[in-house]
């Protein structure tokens, strides 16, 4: 019966992708109660039917495991035996038709947040701002994270309980600093922006810095993954608001293609283009003790009351509308400001409340007190090895390549220390344009002639083994 109720609820919310609601805040802006509520919600999402460790079939209602496995199973097929299979990561810049990275993670966080709001409607997924100041001290960042993020009341206990193998801060230079943002945010083309965000440290830094499963395709098993990816989602929002330029070629997504079923619910088809505006999911990103709620219409699509909870100032105006019959609640520990453009229509139900007891009601569903739930490890691996940097090897079997003369006038000779089955030679001018590209089979020496016509200047010679398609050597040459 319980299961049946759940199914109906979720079919309802996912059948129309319109509005839910959440104030997403930096985790350091959460109240003590919010921290515990979030921690316990993560535990409970591993056991949706709440029947504890005796569950005969633990995976059919383990949302964290299901999302984690999905993320792992479809991580990336780019270099696999069948690279045409749809996947979630690393498709840009070469495969824009397969690209869904930012939108997929947005939908994934939203799916999880919905389940959490079913446990406690005030929960909004917090974000972990990993951007460090210039010249930051890694040890200080570790100390701060151990004191605020990986604590007993928050993200700490999952490491042991779920066997996540974290190795916090071991990759010293992993986290991004402020200098890593401009080259991403100054891009106006969406795919270029998305590609840089995905491949550079604002995304992969936290994955590497936390270590353990966070480093791998199994990363979504670590709850801190969601705090991190909510930050990535915020960065996307920070870019999209001024640029208004996000657009996908794909019109559906893995998991959200109308065929995937979990816990008796078939997930709806989501067109990534329909969720490029974070407000479609009622998401408001708070920052510096301010949540600005604007340009939004309360619809009660998910909760009969839309809750916006924040410890600091909630300011609402500029086209925030609660229509007739709709129900909405703002709750702040400190301050609620209603400014021009805020409209609670006749017949609507609006409550603004100061949370005087600073308690977001951490009671879990069914009146049961909030609890940490089953520990349920994913997989024990005691075999963790520390990565050691040793002395570099004295000898190696690299293909030694000699090219001469340099500078050259009309010919370049290339000698290889061993035969290459398929040797590709490319010459680039300084504009990066390929001006010569040739393949030689089964050779140890090559004579490139006819270079007399090239204008004087610097060129780049690239010699590659075309069976592996990556340069064996890149060398600058000067034409006289």
């Amino acid at each position: 019966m319980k299961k049946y109720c759940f199914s109906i609820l979720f079919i309802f919310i996912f059948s129309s992708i319109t509005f839910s609601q959440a104030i997403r805040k930096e985790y350091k802006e959460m109240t003590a109660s919010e921290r515990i509520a979030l921690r316990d919600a993560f535990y409970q999402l591993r056991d949706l039917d709440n029947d504890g460790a005796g569950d005969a079939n633990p995976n059919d209602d383990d949302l964290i495991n299901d999302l984690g496995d999905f993320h792992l199973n479809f991580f990336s097929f780019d270099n696999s035996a069948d690279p045409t299979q749809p996947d979630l990561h690393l498709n840009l810049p070469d495969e824009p038709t397969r690209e869904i990275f930012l939108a997929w993670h947005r939908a994934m966080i939203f799916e999880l947040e919905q389940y959490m709001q079913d446990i406690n409607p005030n929960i909004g997924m917090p974000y972990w701002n990993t951007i460090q100041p210039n010249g930051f001290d890694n040890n200080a960042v570790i100390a701060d994270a151990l004191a605020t993020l990986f604590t007993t009341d928050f993200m700490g206990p999952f490491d042991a309980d779920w066997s996540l193998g974290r190795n916090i801060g071991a990759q010293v230079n992993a986290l991004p600093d402020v200098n890593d943002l401009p080259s991403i945010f100054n891009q106006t083309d969406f795919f270029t922006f998305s590609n840089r965000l995905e491949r550079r440290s604002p995304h992969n830094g936290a994955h590497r810095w936390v270590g353990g499963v966070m480093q791998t395709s199994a990363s979504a098993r670590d709850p801190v993954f969601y705090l991190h990816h909510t930050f990535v989602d915020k960065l996307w929002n920070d870019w999209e608001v001024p640029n208004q330029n996000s657009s996908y070629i794909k019109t559906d997504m893995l998991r959200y293609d109308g065929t995937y079923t979990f816990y008796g619910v078939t997930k709806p088809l989501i067109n990534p283009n329909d969720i490029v505006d974070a407000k479609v999911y009622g998401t408001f990103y708070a920052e510096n003790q301010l949540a600005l709620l604007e340009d939004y219409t309360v619809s009660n699509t998910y909760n009969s009351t839309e809750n916006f909870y924040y410890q600091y100032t909630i300011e609402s105006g500029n086209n925030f509308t609660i229509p007739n019959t709709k129900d909405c609640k703002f709750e702040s520990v400190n301050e609620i400001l209603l400014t021009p453009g805020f409209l609670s229509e006749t017949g609507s139900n609006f409550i603004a409340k100061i949370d005087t007891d600073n308690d977001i009601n951490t009671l879990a569903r069914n009146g049961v007190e909030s609890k940490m739930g089953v520990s349920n490890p994913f997989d024990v691996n005691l075999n963790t090895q520390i990565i050691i940097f040793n002395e570099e090897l004295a000898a190696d079997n690299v293909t030694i390549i000699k090219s001469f003369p340099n500078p050259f006038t009309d010919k370049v000779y290339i000698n290889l220390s061993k035969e290459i089955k398929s040797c590709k030679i490319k010459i680039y001018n300084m504009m990066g344009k390929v001006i010569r590209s040739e393949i030689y089979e089964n050779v140890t020496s090559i004579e490139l002639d006819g270079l007399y016509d090239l204008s004087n200047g610097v060129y780049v010679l690239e010699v590659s083994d075309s069976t592996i398609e990556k340069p064996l050597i890149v060398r600058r040459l000067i034409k006289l």
Partner: protein
Amino acid sequence: MKKHLILLLFVFTTSCGNSLKNNNFIKISIYNNTQENITNIMLYGNKFKNLKPSEKSNFIIISQDYIKNNAIFTLDSQGKTFNMYIDNTLSKKSYTFQIDSLNIKNRFIYYNIK
């Protein structure tokens, strides 16, 4: 003219000579220290050949730019795909990534860098 030539040569030798020293490029090879075949290997955006147990790849020369912005280790083994975000601050000229074991459940690639 002669002066020009010397100047050009000087510019060339310094810049070229520095390119490896400055770690604009790094040589990387991979050694399979596991009992399993490893295929479809991609490291820092560069494809490596399939490796049988105890087999070592050739060195591939990879630019620092690739290492910084493609810090992912991908491979297939035992019918599974492994993807792992890895260190992107390599400071030496030459490395061998020795793959010691693979954890299928966690998709962790245990490796040593030598």
